[in-house]
């Protein structure tokens, strides 16, 4: 809770993230940082307003939770609908859904790295704030900006070639499968363009690892703490984004829970509310709130997985594992590294899927009516585990809907991370823009998608206020 009499600094809005948020930094009497709160300020209400809609509309409506990872929503939603009709989609439909999801991950990871985070990494945390963005990068490092734009474009093209549209391509997906197959011509286009994307990802990994030497302090202090980690894994423990077993490990890498039947997710995950944020605070139920803080997303997935299952990604994965004790990497800064390794994995997986002749099979649709009155769909969105849970009446009209979004799972961890960075870098007596940008940067490393998380997203001025213990405004900076 924010006590108005306490001294505080607010960063509003947090920019270059996918969402509407503020950070409030609370100060002690001697102006040292006491705590920082990450506050989400928009909300739309999908869980209520989908009530009464036919279940087959759900992929189309819920993909509008997020313009950045709409495909992940389409898939989690379609999987919940598959469960309601009680049908396993044809093999090719599953392959195409997986391929489309690789496009989603490529697009979103490229967006975070190049468009949102690289201005900090390449232009500098303390560089001119008006230039510290993708247009600044276009001017200062055009080749790199072009590489990022093209990589993101390729991810979007995978989605477009399969489903006909880059964003909210909901016409294609159906409960029980998909509406149309992939043509050879479109598959060929993707096959031909894939090697370039793979090469530029490899180049980016080389660049990132060289850059790491310059960011030792940030690696050490950017949300570097123990937590639980959650993600889907394949039957043999490998990296997985579409299906598999939801697994939670502790900070030593020990498996502490496996949710084999997705409908039981609420036995493992609780959701808490704090009155100062629209984003809920999921926690690991066996441990409680807030000690049951866990992380999801690229870093968590690589921590949970035992291997990737593609050659180039597995090479990098081995290096990555060496960065942490027992193979558990706990610095939030390394989400960037994990994201690049996943990019590699997604491109290799897309290549494998495209080379399988079955990807062109025309059997992609199963037909069935409502057979079950409840369905849960789980997928690994770019930012982590995404859960859609629907209940329907015998006519298939939605009576109840719960969605737990990737970004929400990290909420306790965000607050731990912004507090750690604020304590390290924010000097209230000589407040500088770059100090606050680092607080924002740790949030960018997580890559929160608040559009998703509040099943919403915004813009308000950054207004840094220093308020003394008597509530008097002693200093104010607007940028």
């Amino acid at each position: 809770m924010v006590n108005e009499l306490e001294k505080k600094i607010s960063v509003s809005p947090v920019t270059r993230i996918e969402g509407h948020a503020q950070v409030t930094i609370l100060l002690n009497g001697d102006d040292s940082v006491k705590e920082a709160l990450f506050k989400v300020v928009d909300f739309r209400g999908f869980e209520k307003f989908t009530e009464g809609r036919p279940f087959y509309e759900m992929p189309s409506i819920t993909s509008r939770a997020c313009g950045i990872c709409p495909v992940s929503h389409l898939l989690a939603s379609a999987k919940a609908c598959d469960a309601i009709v009680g049908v396993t989609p044809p093999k090719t439909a599953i392959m195409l859904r997986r391929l489309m999801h690789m496009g989603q991950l490529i697009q979103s990871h490229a967006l975070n790295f190049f468009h949102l985070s690289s201005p900090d990494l390449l232009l500098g945390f303390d560089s001119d704030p008006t230039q510290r963005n993708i247009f600044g990068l276009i001017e200062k490092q055009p080749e790199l900006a072009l590489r990022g734009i093209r990589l993101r474009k390729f991810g979007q093209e995978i989605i477009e070639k399969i489903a006909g549209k880059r964003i909210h391509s909901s016409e294609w997906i159906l409960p029980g499968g998909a509406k149309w197959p992939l043509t050879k011509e479109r598959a060929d286009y993707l096959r031909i363009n894939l090697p370039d994307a793979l090469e530029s990802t490899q180049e980016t990994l080389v660049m990132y690892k060289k850059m790491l030497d310059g960011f030792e302090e940030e690696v050490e202090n950017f949300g570097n703490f123990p937590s639980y980690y959650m993600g889907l894994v394949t039957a043999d423990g490998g990296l997985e984004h579409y299906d598999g077993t939801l697994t939670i490990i502790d900070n030593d890498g020990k498996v502490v829970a496996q949710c084999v039947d997705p409908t039981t997710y609420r036995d493992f995950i609780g959701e808490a509310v704090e009155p100062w944020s629209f984003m809920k605070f999921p926690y690991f139920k066996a441990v409680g709130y807030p000690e049951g803080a866990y992380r999801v997303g690229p870093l968590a997935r690589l921590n949970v997985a035992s291997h990737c299952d593609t050659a180039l990604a597995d090479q990098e994965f081995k290096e990555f594992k060496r960065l942490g004790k027992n193979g558990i990497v706990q610095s939030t800064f390394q989400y960037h590294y994990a994201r690049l390794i996943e990019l590699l994995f997604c491109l290799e997986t897309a290549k494998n899927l495209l080379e399988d002749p079955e990807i062109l099979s025309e059997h992609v649709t199963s037909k069935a009516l409502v057979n079950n009155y409840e369905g849960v769909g789980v997928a690994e969105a770019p930012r982590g585990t995404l859960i859609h849970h629907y209940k329907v009446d015998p006519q298939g009209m939605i009576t109840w809907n719960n969605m737990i979004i990737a970004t929400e799972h990290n909420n306790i961890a965000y607050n731990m991370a912004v507090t750690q960075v604020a304590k390290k870098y924010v000097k209230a007596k000589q407040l500088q823009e770059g100090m606050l940008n680092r607080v924002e940067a740790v949030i960018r490393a997580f890559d929160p998608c608040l559009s998703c998380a509040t099943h919403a997203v915004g813009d308000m001025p950054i207004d840094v206020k220093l308020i003394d213990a008597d509530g008097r405004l002693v200093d104010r900076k607007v940028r």
Partner: protein
Amino acid sequence: MTTNAKVRVATVWLSGCSGCHMSFLDQDERLFDLAKKMTLVYSPIVDVKEFPENVDVTLVEGAVANEDQFAMLKKVRTRTKLLVSLGDCAVTGNVTALRNSWHHSDQAVLERAYKDLSDLNAVVPTAVPKLLIHARPLHEVVKVDFFIPGCPPHPDLINYVLTELLAGRTPVMEGRSKYG
């Protein structure tokens, strides 16, 4: 808009999914051409925190769903020459306005999410912007000069409108956009 100076463009994200901003980025390599003609002076992807004065064109995504967004949109209107509704949530309310069919829809959606679907501290957050009773399209709050429909609008359409506006011409939407 003088011929030599770059046009000052802003983008604003109200209550929407950011898909319209993503479609803006889906202009891909064409962003390089835009960069020659415009400066992005305010946007969720730019670290400027106060909406500046004297903006030439502002694209606004999303419906107006809470009091902060209402105040923000009013401010944007006074500081921008051409205000463009970008995408269906801004143009009609779209998905953001699906809640409007409930009586006191603000309370209905909040209570479902925070009271019914929580395990701990099940209260509706209060130290956050207050939701409006109904989500509104932009033109119910301020005068809008131009509308780009679509969920999201196609990147080619965004590029066409921007290119025309940057050149000081009025875009012709007939045959290029439609409802739904």
